[in-house]
């Protein structure tokens, strides 16, 4: 049973565990903190350290930076079961001592059996982070998009004795906004992810490939993670690399390492 708990707990973490960043700016949204193992609520802390290796301007080859840009981030996610099928989740974060965008959403479990799991979610991200329009210095790193964004996503996974495979997809829409007399146009956002995980006792090793696209940018992050389940606590170490695969367009490419701690509460 513990093996299965680990698989499904980490499954959603491994899919879209890579932050979904606007091409220029701070992250828009990341993994929904969905409840997958019957707990009534869950809290997750993630510390990540990102290093920017490439900038990819429009119509240009990627530019390998000689002065790499480091961005630390602390994320807090929480979720609460509302009924047997419905749950609510929220997340916010700190990027370089500045708050990032804040997201609220609901998740719905369609199928949940010993071998299959299917979830859908709907969320909205509020522009609480500092955007490119509120920078104090030219070298500051934006921590938010400056736009409201709405996301809809789904995930399907198959659980085996040895591990799991699955896929998830998200589509989003950033709403037009006006800041300092500048009209910010709407933007479409999407991700598609494929993942596989192998478990041994309380440990799980996961590998996932994702494609992230907006109407302006494209990148292909690869993610690796190692998880350890200890009763109602889960520790996850993750590494993601956007520099390996192409084609890439109009974006910044990072490598990041993160450590997550998940505390699950059962009634």
């Amino acid at each position, binding site marked *: 049973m513990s093996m299965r708990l680990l698989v499904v707990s980490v499954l959603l973490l491994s899919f879209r565990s890579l932050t979904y960043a606007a*091409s*220029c*700016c701070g992250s828009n949204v990341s993994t929904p903190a969905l409840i997958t193992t019957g707990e009534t609520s869950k809290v997750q802390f993630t510390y990540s350290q990102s290093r920017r290796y*490439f*900038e*990819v*301007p*429009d*119509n*240009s*080859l*990627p*530019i*390998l*930076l*000689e*002065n790499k840009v480091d961005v630390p981030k602390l994320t807090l996610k929480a979720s609460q079961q509302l009924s047997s099928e419905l749950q609510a989740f929220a997340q916010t974060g700190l990027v370089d001592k500045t708050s990032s965008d804040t997201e609220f959403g609901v998740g719905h479990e369609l*199928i949940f*059996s010993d*071998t*299959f799991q299917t979830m859908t979610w709907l969320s909205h991200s509020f522009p609480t982070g500092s955007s*490119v*329009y*509120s*920078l*104090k*210095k*030219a*070298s*500051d790193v*934006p921590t938010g998009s*400056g736009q409201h964004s709405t996301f809809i996503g789904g995930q*399907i996974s*198959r659980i085996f004795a040895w591990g799991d*495979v699955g*896929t998830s997809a998200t589509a989003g829409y950033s709403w037009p906004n006006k800041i*300092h*007399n*500048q*009209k*910010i*146009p709407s*933007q479409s956002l999407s991700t*598609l992810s*494929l993942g596989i995980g192998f478990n041994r006792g309380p440990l799980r090793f996961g590998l996932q*490939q994702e*494609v992230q696209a907006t*109407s*302006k*940018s494209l990148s*292909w992050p690869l993610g690796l993670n190692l998880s350890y389940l200890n009763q109602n606590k889960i520790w996850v170490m993750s590494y993601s690399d956007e*520099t*390996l*695969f*192409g*084609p*890439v367009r*109009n974006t*910044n*490419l990072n490598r990041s390492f993160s450590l997550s701690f998940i505390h699950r509460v059962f009634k």
Partner: protein
Amino acid sequence: MHRSLFSRMIFFICLGFFVSFCGPSPLTHHIRESETQTKMPQEKVSNKICTFSVSTSECFTIKWIKGPKIKVESQFLVELIDPQTAKALQATEVPEFDLWMPSMDHGSAPVTIERASDSEFIVSRVYFIMRGDWVVRLKKGNQVISQLNLELP
């Protein structure tokens, strides 16, 4: 039924992934930052350009005081010109400027504008936050009167 549906779905998603997953890796196809330093910003060479974008009675010339350069503050002196006479235009109001990046559909923090003479203004806190194409826009309300295009390496 679930197994069959799942297998088909995974197959087609994998197929889609592998078909589109064939671009050049950034690790092997890139240029170094130092190679871009040798390039000058496209408009800095001439340093004094008047751009007409729409039928209007105004345009402006720019003389860079600092920059233009990415990730540090740039600053420029702007002079408003009457395109009919090509002479300096006496500005009764402080003009509005902003920065825009068309390829990314975003701008930058608001600039600071101070009057230097009847027709000249110093524009500071000009933050080009990343490489690429930028537009310095002279605006009146929501309307762009004139704009200067820049390519920042």
